[in-house]
């Protein structure tokens, strides 16, 4: 088990390097001088020169990359050219908001997707199943930002139950959490249903029924536990999914998290910040995938040995 985890971690290192290379390389996509872009359009010449010297932009690409990488590894991701604050400070101050929002949205998503997916699979080809599947398809096809607008119109503007945007009280959480959790739940529910339907065909489910176990026990203890295996492997994409939602939804609800920080940074062409946010989120995805691998081994005893 330990060996398995260590192996996974070692495999993640080249991946992280690859990611950093791509993220760094992105800045070179810009037509013209990357320093001019990093520094912002109106930067005076001396600022541009100092950035060029500090980050080694007068050197070849690979040297630039390693200069940048060694700085990043020491926690220096540059300064925001707009606010002049260190990027790491900005991220640290916004991260908790994003984490809180995502935590509740994930919880909500799980609370919707699992019961609904299990019921749909158990009552296959009945109206419950059709309704749940329709919910999932519509949820997956609906743009999150549009759902957010609709929810705001109905619950904030018309009914005046919740504030339209901002943070502060629990009421501020309701609409963003609902939007984010709902869109994610749709896809997850479908996966739970499909995976469970596959497992329900297995012989060991018949064995469980032959033991005289209650159908609920058969479903949850014997079938769902196995259905989790394929679901867990794609949970890494959960984070990627949440990120998209977060960027859009934080922007709509003026939620002071990383997503909104990113869109503002993009609009203000504050690229040190953009770089840092993308890098950080991608590394978080790698970490999540690592966690998934471990979780996978916990759920499926067959993985532990190999």
């Amino acid at each position, binding site marked *: 088990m330990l060996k398995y985890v260590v192996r996974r971690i070692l495999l993640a290192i080249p991946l992280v390097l690859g990611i950093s290379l791509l993220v760094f390389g992105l800045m070179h996509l810009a037509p013209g001088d990357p320093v001019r872009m990093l520094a912002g359009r109106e930067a005076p010449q001396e600022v541009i020169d100092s950035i060029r010297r500090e980050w080694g932009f007068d050197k070849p690409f690979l040297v630039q990359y390693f200069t940048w990488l060694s700085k990043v590894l020491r926690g220096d991701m540059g300064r925001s050219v707009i606010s002049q604050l260190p990027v790491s400070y900005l991220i640290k101050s916004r991260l908790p908001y994003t984490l809180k929002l995502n935590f509740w949205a994930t919880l909500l998503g799980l609370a919707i997707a699992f019961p609904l997916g299990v019921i749909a699979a158990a009552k296959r080809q009945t109206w419950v199943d059709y309704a749940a599947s329709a919910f999932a398809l519509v949820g997956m096809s609906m743009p999150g930002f549009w759902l957010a607008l609709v929810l705001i119109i109905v619950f904030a503007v018309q009914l005046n139950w919740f504030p339209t945007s901002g943070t502060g009280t629990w009421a501020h959480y309701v609409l963003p959490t609902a939007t984010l959790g709902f869109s994610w739940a749709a896809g997850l529910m479908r996966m739970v249903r499909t995976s469970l339907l596959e497992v329900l065909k297995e012989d060991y489910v018949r064995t469980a029924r*032959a033991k005289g176990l*209650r*159908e609920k026990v058969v479903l949850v203890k014997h079938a769902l536990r*196995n259905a989790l295996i394929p679901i867990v492997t794609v949970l890494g994409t959960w984070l990627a999914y949440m990120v998209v939602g977060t960027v859009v939804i934080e922007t709509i609800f003026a939620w002071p998290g990383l997503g909104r920080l990113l869109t503002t940074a993009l609009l203000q062409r504050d690229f040190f910040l953009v770089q840092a946010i993308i890098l950080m989120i991608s590394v978080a995805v790698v970490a999540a995938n690592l966690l998934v691998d471990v979780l996978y081994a916990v759920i499926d005893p067959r993985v532990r040995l190999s």
Partner: protein
Amino acid sequence: MQPLLEVQDLEVCFARRQVLRRVSFSIAPGETLGIVGESGSGKSVTALSIMGLLSRPGRVTGGRVLWHGEDLLQLPPDSHRQLRGKAMAMIFQEPMTCLNPVYTVEKQISEVLMLHRGMSKKEAAEAAADYLEQVGIAEPMARLRNYPHELSGGMRQRVMIAMALAGEPELLIADEPTTALDVTVQAQILDLLKQLQAKTGMAMILITHDLGLVAENAERGVVMYAGEVVEEGSVEELFTNPAHPYTQGLLRSLPRWGEQQDMLYTIPGTVPRRLEGIAGCAFAERCPLAEERCAEPQSMHRFSATQAARCWRTKDKVGDAEWQSR
């Protein structure tokens, strides 16, 4: 004596396709009944119907399944469920896939003990080790901690048997329990089943496509063909004096000791895929003795006190005797 289980005119459909037609047989407490037939003859469907495990699109469309005289098909599903694993247990053909891969052997056996025998977790663990020992597994304490993928096929089937025994059933249905196993293991498993049966006094339905297994292990046999019982009798009768041409064909296709056989006999033709449109004997199209009247429906004709067959020629021989499956 009242039979333990009596199946009367059981009919099962898969969606709109009929797969069982008027299946009737019974089994006494402690008895071993063999059900023989080719794949697709409806053996397993019969077993699953008795257990209440038929899954969509299969459903029982007629008949009765009497357990100690009470019709299981009329029971609320939850009452039928409570009999499963306790009064009647079942083991299956594929030991490789029948155990849940994510739980230890201990957990899977204990589950039955806790559910049906009201044991605590600790008691169940001890009893589970006991059952593993009974089914001939060495080092039961160590095996309890194993996951199914760590065990061989024969070992897994033994675990399945231990699980079935754990409910102390009156009836064990063994559906092709050895087909997926190595030949040497097959004999061991069947010996084990016999020995356990002697010890516990449970009845057993042994479902197989192998007439030889029935001869060695059962007292009576039921021969099924295309969703129908075509002959029933004591093992001795079936082997020395088979009445139905299908049983005769099966018998001829068995390899025999001491007889020089260049080639094993095979019954020409295949089992009909659809039963719709066949009112009479489904075997007629493959039967060397088929006549015109075979297209008409017929019931089982009594041949002796314990033997009967669904064939006009039986009727010709013994006349119109009323047959009541015992």
